């Protein structure tokens, strides 16, 4: 790679004040907007989780009524998936992809602006019913669980309609950013940047974007059908009118299962970069990882009904979904292999991003292995909808994507702000997070196999001690995140040392050839990759 900081000399300066952010078409500004919004919503979703764990601390109705509890768990799920993790990974894509492939900006800048500004509108639509309820209108937000199973979602209150509109907006936003990312990757790669030379993060997002385009429209269609059942007299999900409630589950999970990989893949990409940087060694199996992404992407749309083993599937269908689900373990194992092989015989140091990356491997590993257990259709009779499942997907989704985005945040913070974050605080943040996380979710595996179902605000006495433990862990986990917020604010205010252009000794990639922080318009002249 041969390139330096290349400016045209006549920098265009952004307008100042709110106009800059509202009208911006600059990929870095939009990236920052996504990240600020996403991390903000991560705190909102996390606060809801604190409410849940406070309610569940003891076997009694403590602070939430059953009505409120159902709303809180539903919003927690919807917010974490759609308003926190997805916007954060999209923000990383916006900020990083043009710099990683040597492009001056995203290919469709105005679409990029629309795509972002739909998000706050969607988030407001989702939660506004709570505000309405407080002033005496309606009965609150959606309370059906994030899976919105019919017929409960057909008969539930107007909160569901608000959620339907929010999901349509979120879907449009995701589709716009996916189209933008694909067009950018296909058309704006700099000279010499062939597809196979493309950084792995860019690859992970390419597959993610295709997945989103394949499955999100199905979900939008499904929620429109739900809306029609609720208000227009159709009977898609109503057995009395010839419909089938299970149809909803098929449509939902056709989207919902790939969604898990939509959250996972971009963070897997970032993880590979971080491991290579702090091992001071080139990434192992770049090509193998690309093939694994393809395999995961394709397989992920073929396994959805493993979420429905207790809904009553025929024997051949059950067997197909069980065996196809097991097959996904192979490409995921390829990724694990490449990650550990990247570390192997490296010259490692353990700055905060590296710690979170290593934590990711261990925790996501537990999530993946327990997923293998859930693939067994008969054992799933016991695991399904129990706390075992809750523990499994928190290991998979917090242990994976959330650890990944925190790692990415520490990794790129110095690049974005030009200043180093506080390493001591970062390490505290890591250890408290990992310890708190395990105390929260490890007991839940045992609660599940002992028979505690998910989504209940009150429970039998035999589950009391493990729930108490889980709640205390959750409070540690929750408060640890305040260290992160403080550390980020400190860095944005330039409290640390100045960062070099390369930031990390082992870092490579076009984004690290730019200054820290990078100029408002980067790569106005194409760099050349050889």
């Amino acid at each position, binding site marked *: 790679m041969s390139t330096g900081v290349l400016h045209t000399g006549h920098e265009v300066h952004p307008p100042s004040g709110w106009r800059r952010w509202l009208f911006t078409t600059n990929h870095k500004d939009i990236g920052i907007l996504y990240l600020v919004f996403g991390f903000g919503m991560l705190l909102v979703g996390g606060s809801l989780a604190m409410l849940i764990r406070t309610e569940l601390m003891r*076997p*009694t*109705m403590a602070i939430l009524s*059953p009505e409120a509890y*159902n709303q809180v768990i539903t919003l927690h799920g919807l917010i974490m998936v759609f308003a926190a993790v997805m916007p954060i990974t999209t923000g990383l894509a916006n900020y990083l992809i043009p710099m990683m492939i040597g492009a001056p900006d995203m290919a469709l800048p105005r679409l990029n602006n629309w795509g972002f500004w739909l998000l706050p509108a969607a988030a407001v639509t989702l939660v506004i019913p709570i505000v309405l309820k407080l002033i005496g209108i309606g*009965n609150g937000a959606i309370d*059906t669980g994030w899976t919105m199973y019919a017929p409960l979602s057909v*008969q*539930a209150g107007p909160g569901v309609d608000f959620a339907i509109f929010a999901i349509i907006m979120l879907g449009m936003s995701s589709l716009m950013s996916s189209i933008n990312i694909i067009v950018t990757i296909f058309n704006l790669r700099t000279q010499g940047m062939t597809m196979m030379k493309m950084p792995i993060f860019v690859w992970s997002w390419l597959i993610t974007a295709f997945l989103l385009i394949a499955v999100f429209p199905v979900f939008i269609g499904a929620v429109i059908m739900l809306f029609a059942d609720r208000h227009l007299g159709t009977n898609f999900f109503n*057995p009395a009118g010839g419909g*089938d*409630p299970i149809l909803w589950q098929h449509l939902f999970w056709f989207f919902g299962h790939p969604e898990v990989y939509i959250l996972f893949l971009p963070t897997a990409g970032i993880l590979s970069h971080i491991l290579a940087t702090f*091992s*001071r*060694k*080139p990434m*192992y*199996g770049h090509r193998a990882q690309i093939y694994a992404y393809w395999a995961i992407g394709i397989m992920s749309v073929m396994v959805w009904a493993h979420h429905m083993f*207790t*809904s*009553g599937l025929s024997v051949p269908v*059950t067997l197909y979904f069980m*065996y196809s689900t097991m*097959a996904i*373990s*192979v490409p995921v194992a390829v990724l694990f*292999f490449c990650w*550990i092989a990247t*570390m192997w015989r*490296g010259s*490692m*140091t*353990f700055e905060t991003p590296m710690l979170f990356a290593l934590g990711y491997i261990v925790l996501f*590993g537990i999530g993946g292995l327990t997923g*293998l*257990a859930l693939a*067994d*259709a*008969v*054992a799933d*009779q*016991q695991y*399904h*909808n129990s706390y075992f499942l809750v523990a499994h997907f928190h290991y998979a989704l917090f242990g994976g994507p959330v650890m990944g985005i925190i790692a990415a945040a520490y990794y790129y913070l110095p690049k974005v702000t030009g200043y180093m974050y506080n390493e001591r605080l970062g390490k505290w943040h890591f250890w408290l997070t990992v310890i708190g996380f395990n105390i929260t979710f490890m*007991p839940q595996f045992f*609660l599940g*196999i*002992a*028979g505690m*179902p998910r*989504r*209940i*605000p*009150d*429970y039998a*006495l*035999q589950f009391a*001690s493990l729930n*108490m*433990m889980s709640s205390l862990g959750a409070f540690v986990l929750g408060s640890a995140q305040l260290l992160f917020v403080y550390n980020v604010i400190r860095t944005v205010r330039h409290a640390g040392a100045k960062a070099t252009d390369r930031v990390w000794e082992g870092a490579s990639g076009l984004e690290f050839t730019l200054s820290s922080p990078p100029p408002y318009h980067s790569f106005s002249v194409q760099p050349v990759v050889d």
Partner: protein
Amino acid sequence: MTPFKRLIAWPVVAAAGFFPVPVSASYPWNFPAPVTPIARETLHVHDIFLEIIVTIFLLVLSVFLYSIFRHRKSRGYPAAKFTKPRTPLQWALISIPFLILTFIDYVILGVPAYHAVLALANTHNSRMVVRITGSQWKWQYAYPGLGIKYISRLSTPEDQIDNEDPKGPHFLRQVNHPLVLPVNEKIRLLVTSDDVLHSWWVPAFGVKQTAVPGFLRSTWVNIDKPGVYRGQCASLCGIGHAFMPIVVVAKSQAGFQRWVAKEQTAEAEQVAETSVTMTKAALLAHGQKVFQNNCSVCHQATGLGIPGTFPPIAAGHPFQAAPQMTQAIQKRGFYKNGVIVIGPVANHIRIVLHGIPGTPMPAFASQLSDVDIAAVITYERNSFGNHTGDVVQPEEVRNARQEH
């Protein structure tokens, strides 16, 4: 318990011991002892799984930790440069873990799973059938061959839930009328629902079956030990989801036959009652019980309902809700000028019998007897400050049933 399980279980339990909260005697962290072939199969598979995944985890973790401790810059370890396997030998070595994984997936786990799926689906050769219907928020059990049918619902007193009384050992896991099944007999369970999805789950049986309205799903149990087995609904079904437990009492064949005989006389007595005219006092007393058990979850024990969703029963009370809802209630004669009024008796009977389609108001025709319905309507029309003086007799309800 396998050594592996003990390995992970004990730190969790030890840690849990530090938090002094009420606990019942049963283990809080493991499968209840299995009492059906499917549950035993599940536990067996679960044990193999656990051994395998803990082994994989520990193996990979040791490689990982070895690398972290050996290959660090602070120990002066120089970074290698390799990025992929080079020699055929390396390729062969690298493929080994993936072949092992595939072998685990499709042979070690896949083969037993195949047989278990077939076994679970095989509901043939059962001499007895029980029909289970979930509805918000109770279970209905029917024995088609025996003419027995009843409703089973949470019997934990409200005061224990509200923390006013100490909690009993079976807090939230006790019912007024458990499902009774004979042991050593293959019993086919037909599961369905009246309203939304529910899921009938008893961990000791290894059975979890979603109850889907409009469809019958079947599964089976063959219990080999008399005893009391507890579980609960496992599919979010609205605000009462945590409060629809399942209790199964498994009896010896002789014990079961005695129970059947007793139930059948009780049902016969109930049928006889229907033709009798009852006093207002008797109807009110019985009606209050029926209301508490069936209606108060929605319309509230106070009869005041919940604004926006569940209309009050008490006349003269305002009710705020979406106009489509209030207009519909007005049409049925239960609402005027923003307040609840008591509508015509005939409508009242029709609503309780057949529910209000498209709303959460359930149809009680198949759940309550004529006596129950007559009593609850009499009660509603003469309580919560209502003074219509109307007395509805079981006879009228029976006639209303026949209309349809």
